[in-house]
Every structure is written in C-alpha cells, then in structure tokens.
C-alpha cells in the first residue's frame, strides 16, 4: 500500500478551504497550518499564466525528516504516511530544518506537527479533510498500489509533476498540470 495525493492545478482556485478544513479537523492552533496554498505567476501583461497549488507534507518515500529524527518520533506509518509521535518528540526541530518543503511547524505544546493525510479519517474510510472539503474537487487521494484508486487513475490520465524532485526525497504529493 502506498498512499499518495494529487492536486489538480487546473481546477484549484486557491481558496484555502483545504487549509481551514485541516485546521478545524485537526485542531491546529491559530497562527499555524499543516497545509498552505502557493500561487505562481509567469509572463508579462497580457500574456500571463498562473499555477495554484494546495501544498502540504509530501510524505516522501525517502524522507529526510524521518532519517534525521534523533528519537524516532518521526516515522513511517502504514501506506508510507510520515507521522510524528508527539510523546516521543522532543521538539529539537531537526526535521523542520531537513524538510525541503517546509512542511512542519513547532506546535506550541512542544512537539513538531505536520500533515498526517488525516490518518484518523482514512482509517475509517473517509478522505482526508482537505480532499473531502475542496469545492473544486481538485484533491485526489488514495493508494497507488491500487490501480483503480482515484489517485492512480488521475495520475495515469494526466501529466503531473512533483516539487523539488532534485532533492531526491521521492515525494508523494503530485501536481496535475
């Protein structure tokens, strides 16, 4: 099993619904977020292009945050989900420094927090909060080992990219372009 997410940049309107749905679902304190929206623009008026991406932890196969964690708090859960065990985390911040995507934040309660792909929801058959709420249905989630999963189907059908592939982390957050 290999969980992955694909975000359709052609549909995303950058509304940040994913951000706030994640915050309420996971009780993320105000001022912090587990996911965020990036907008990039190319060209000069009037020949313009924008790309909007809903970004979060890339749940990398070769995750530097897991490798560098001194206590083993950062670990791989089933399906390759990168998690932080809050009790084991000493808040040293090595993982924050090692992440090329800046996907982690120091929780005020003293541990490092990040996207979990809403593992508590997928365990009971629900989509991650961001995917479930997105008004444009631009977030696809599922198991890459299942060729019929939403994410497998859409990645097969569409051109996609990952962010900072040169970091060699084998990210599992894909962007449909």
């Amino acid at each position: 099993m290999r969980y992955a997410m694909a975000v359709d940049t052609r549909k995303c309107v950058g509304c940040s619904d994913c951000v706030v749905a994640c915050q309420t679902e996971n009780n993320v304190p105000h001022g912090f977020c587990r996911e965020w929206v990036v907008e990039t623009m190319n060209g000069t008026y009037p020949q313009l292009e924008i790309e909007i991406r809903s970004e979060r932890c890339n749940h990398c196969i070769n995750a530097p945050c897991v490798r560098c964690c001194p206590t083993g708090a950062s670990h791989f859960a089933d399906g390759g989900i990168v998690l932080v065990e809050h009790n084991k985390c000493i808040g040293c911040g090595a993982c924050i420094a090692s992440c090329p995507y800046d996907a982690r934040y120091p929780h005020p309660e003293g541990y490092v927090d990040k996207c979990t792909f809403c593992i508590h929801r997928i365990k009971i058959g629900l989509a991650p909060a961001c995917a479930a709420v997105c008004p444009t249905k631009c977030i696809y989630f599922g198991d890459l080992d299942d060729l019929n999963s939403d994410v497998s189907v859409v990645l097969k059908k569409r051109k996609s990219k990952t962010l900072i592939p040169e970091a060699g982390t084998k990210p599992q957050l894909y962007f449909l372009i």
Partner: protein
Amino acid sequence: MGIGVLAITKGTFGATKLLFSPDEAKKLKVDLKRTPTYCEVCFWKCAGWVYKTSEGKIWKIIGNDEDQHSNGRFCPRGTGGVGMYYDEDRLKTPLIRVEERGKQVFREVSWDEALNYVAAKMKDISSKHGAESMALFTHGSGSTYFTNLLKAFGSSNIAEPSYAQCRGPRDEAFLATFGEEVYSPETTDIRDTKCLVLIGSHIGENMHNGQIQEMSDAIDKGVTIITVDPRFSTAAGKSKYWLPIKPSTDIALLLAWIHEIIYNDYYDKNYVEKYCNGFDKLKEHVLDFTPEWAYGITTISPDKIRKTAKEMANASPAVLIHPGRHVTWYGDDTQRVRAIAILNALLGSWGRRGGFYRPASYVVPSAKTPKYPEPKKAWTDAFPGKYPIASSPVSNALIDASIPENKPAYLIKGWIVNATNLISSIPDQANTLKAIQNLDLLVAVDTMPMEITGWADVVLPECTYLERYDMLRISPHRKPAIALRMPAAEPKSNTRSGYNIARGLAVKLGLENYFPFEKQEELLDWQLKQSGSSLEEMQRIGVKTKEREADDLYFAENENVAFSTDSGKIELYSKYIEQAGFDPLPKYTVHEEPSEGYYRLIYGRTPQHTFGRTSNNPNLTDLMHENTAWVNPKVSKAWGLVTGQYIWLKNQDGVISNFKIKVRVTERIRWDSVYMVHGFGHGQKQMKRCFGKGASDTQLITKVLTDPLMGGTGMRSNFVTFVTEKSEKEVAS
C-alpha cells in the same frame, strides 16, 4: 494504523466501504453528535452539519451530502464559520447610548429595557411622522422577522443593500428581458456549459460555492472559459481567452459581440423566431457596432472579439454569458446586464442545458397572520418618479429620504439596521453619516461590533447562526428542497436570535398577533407537518429534496413557453424600459477616465471572506488578515513602489484611506487601474483582530454613479493615487 480494517475500493474515496466494527467507530469518535444547519457566512446558504466534541463543544462544520448548494463541500468561509461563534469580540449584551459628562457612551441594559426603549421611540416616530418614517435595512436570514415586524408596524420601507448595492441591475435586466430573474443561487447551468463567459465576474474569488463546484466540473469536461476583466483573475487563469478590457467599456464589447452573432448568422434562428420580440430593431441598432468600432473603446482586438463570438456560437445553446451578481459598477448597469441577457437570448441559452435551467421550489405554507396595515406612503413617494423600474426599495433612496436638505416628500426618522454594516456596504459614507445625524432612532442588530453599531442609539446583540433556529431555507434549485438550521449550542452571553428579538419588539408594540408562535421551533414544526415532514425528521436529515413534478428542467423541443413579460416573449427590444423613459436597447456611454497620476479603483472579493462581515473571524483572519493594493509594474516603477510597502490611497475628492495598505506589484492588473479586496480597513476598535488592517474601498468610493432606472449605486467610478509618506497623509488630513 489498523491496516486490516481498511479497504480502499475504486471510485470516490469518500464512498469507500467501511470494514470496522461499531465499537471501533466509537473508539475513533466518529459517532460524534451533529446537528444540521445552513450557513449564514454568506448568502449561498449551504446546508451542513455542525459537529461537536465529546464534551459538546462546537468543533467543525461539514457540508451535507444531500444539499444542492454545497454537495457536501463547504467553502473556506463556511468551514471557518466556527470562528463566528468563538470570536471573543462578539456583542454580548444589549446597549443603549447615553450621555455621561458630555461624552456619549453605551450603557449595558437588560433586553426588557432595550426593547421597551426601541418600542417607545418607534411609537413616538409613528405618532409624530407616521409609521412609514421607520425604515429597515436588512440582510440575511433575519430579514424575514424584521420585515414582518416593519410591515405589521405600517411601513414598507424595507431595503436590502443586496439590491441597490449589488444584484439589483441584474434582476431588473433579466426581468425586463425574460420576465424572470436568475434567483439565488443563480439558475446558471455551469456544470453542463461548453462555453462560460465571465464579464467581470470572478468565480473562484467570489466563493459562490455551487458555481465554483460546477465551474470545476465544467473544466474537467473541457469547457471554454472567456473572461472579460481588467484584472487577471483566478478565473482568467483558467480561461482560454482573457480579454483585459479597459474598465467601464463592457457594453461596447457586448454590442460588438451581438453585432458579430447577428451579422454572421450565428444566432439560434428557431429560438429567436419562436421566443423573441424585437429582433429586427436590435439588428438595426447594432449595425455599426463592429469589432473595429469596439476595439477603439475596449482595447480588445477585433480578432479576439470575432474569435470569442465564434466560440460562443459553436457552443450554442450550451453557452452561458454569466449574469454576474455584484453588478453595480458604472450607473448604466441595468443596460449592461440587458446586453448580457440579449446575448444569452440570441444564443438560445435561456431554458437550455448548459445555459440557464428552470428552477423548482419546495412549497411550505406560511403562518397565518393578520393582514398588514396599508402603509400610508411607500418608498417611491419620498422622491416621486425616481428609479421607475426598481422592483425593490432602494437602500440609498431611503438614506437620501432621511436627509431634510434633499427635500423628500416625507422624512425617514428611524432605522432598524439588521445584519448589514451600512458604513461599509453603502458608498459615500459622508452621506450615510449625515442621514444618521438626522435620525431620532437608530437600532443596530448584529453579532459583531461593526461600525454601524457605533452609530446606533440601541445595539441589539444577535446570537450567531450556530446558536439559533431560523426559517427553513427554501431556495429554488434544480430540485425542490428545504434545509433546516437548528442551534448547535445555547446563545452565548446575553444574545438572542433574530426571531426572538423581532418578536420581542412586536410584543412591546402590541403586534404579537403577527408572530403567532412564541418559539420558532413551534412554527417550523407546524410548517413542516403541513408539508409532509416534521421538525424531528429535519433535525435528523437536515435537508429534504424532492423530485421535480415534471421533467421540465429545460425547455422541451418546440415547447410553447409563456414568458412573464408584457408581450409574453423574450424582449430583445424592451418596451417596458422604453415606457419608463429609457433606452429600449442598450447603448454604450462614455465614462470619465482617471486624470494623470490617478488610477481607477476596482474592488472585488476574496474566497476567505464575505464582504466586511468576516474580517474579525479568528479562523478566517488566519487565512487572510489584510487586503493589498494591486499595482501594475509600469505604475509601481513610476512611483517607486515595491511589493510589501505600506501606502495610503487618496481618491479624486481628496479622501485618504484611514489606514495603510500593502502594495502588491503584479502583472495581473492593467496599468490604468488599482485593485483591492473589499471589506478591510475596519475602524471599530472593539474588533481587535481586524481594526486598522488594510484599507477600506468604501471609504474611497465617494463618487457614486446611480443607475437612473433602478437606483443601483455604481461604485467603480472612483480614481485613486498613492500617498507614500505618513506626514503627507497627516498634512492632508
């Protein structure tokens, strides 16, 4: 994770089958208590569920899968609606303005004292000036109750700023053309359209949930989007064609499109012949409005005008020239939307798949109440003959009728302002404040200490939508449906629901017969039982949808359709508007342009906020806490402005924004315009999170171009320049 309990099947992930036991579900807290609601953060009114923690605290709000407005997916504002409940700056108890040692302050009072005070003042106004001298300005779900109260009191002076400051010109233009408005949610069949044309409508930034969802579905199906906007909006970024039009020239473009579509025989001949009136006159009218003519006005090349006209024709009748929603721009707005309506008619999209569908409504009986007394004077009597085609009272006309210098035929002396911050929603703030100074009574009903509450004599704190019942939501849609809102928590502090406030006032005024049910839930249960449901059922399901009685979502082939216009046909040429004394066919009129060093102020929406209503919501300020001034790089270079720099904006009348605003240098805006999101720059200190954050566009909209047909306030008529030094600002002010 318990890998054995999960099986992912194909299809939608959310529909994955569960393979765990009910005990495990309990352990995972999936069985949390939930109550139905429909959202009040904006007018889309999406139905959803309020989830609570095991301790009973409001936790999150999730869309109801059965709801056609949201399809189970709330927008960021709806998701962040919990912040409205938790906002610690909320109004907490009734307040009455008193004078202490020469200083005006608010005194906390009981509900009884507040309602007695208001009722006494209302009676006083009624006996001195007549009941019609009381006016209501209102927005949202509470409108029903306060409207009922005012009508029972004897006044029909009830205005929603959503008419004359927003959708009014659109409604009148579609009424004049098709005999029907486009309702809310709009009857736009975006999901099945092949060509979506957006005239300044920025779907995706305006977060009209159902429309965004359908636009996304349409993108999946390969829709062609054409966006006409001086700004490269999010929608423009999804478009095959972006037409960066010179602001205020849209009618010229629309006329050129009509010209192209008629003179190239692109129009739907059968449809026009069967359903439309006045085609020949229209054809003659647009003879000279060629793409070359429009080029000189709009700056859009003839080639692009031709290509986009052809795209529309290719998609016809599954083409939708979107009617827009906030359309009060230049004072000729009814005529502009008329051109949009005509274009839709020529392409045969009204009543057709991918154009406009026919809505259906759920029928629920109203409570039996006594007949309202006949108001002695209507709003139109204040300024006879003004705004002849307005089908709703015009808020700005009621404000003007509150100012003696305007010599209205009768004076408005008291306002109830429900859930609308007139200081921010009505342009020309000085005029609004002048009117307020002449009032004997100003009552503000709100959940937050908005600016208007600071000007009120009495402040009545309403609880949020998460703490109250409200009327059933009965908006027309593809299928008839109703939705229930019920409280997920007790009203916080000393707040009350709009129903209780209006009924409380009615009791004090001796008008309780108009509110026969003491508790709103009794009324709801009665209504629901009359229409085949019950409060108990609705509390369980939240949304009830019925099938349509007939298969008539679209016109049947060769159906004889009776349009509710005078002629019974679609009026390309509007005799109705002609009889009112205006152009029966839309004309392009030249608008003023900015002088050197000034730029047209264009404002719009952001998906994270609703007008200025959500600016203090802790969840939503977390997403966006201030607006920025979009400036083209050519302009920023000339002024030496850089992204992130704080400046003040000054308009053509010398008004400088109270607060500073960050510059955003971007290619996404024309060099003749400056863009900002509406709803920031609040000056009310009690709203701690949003006080002084960003600038207020309303403050800079001092020049209003009023639509003579229906009173809409054109607000894209102001020009701004940049003030970079604070000292400069201080000297000027």
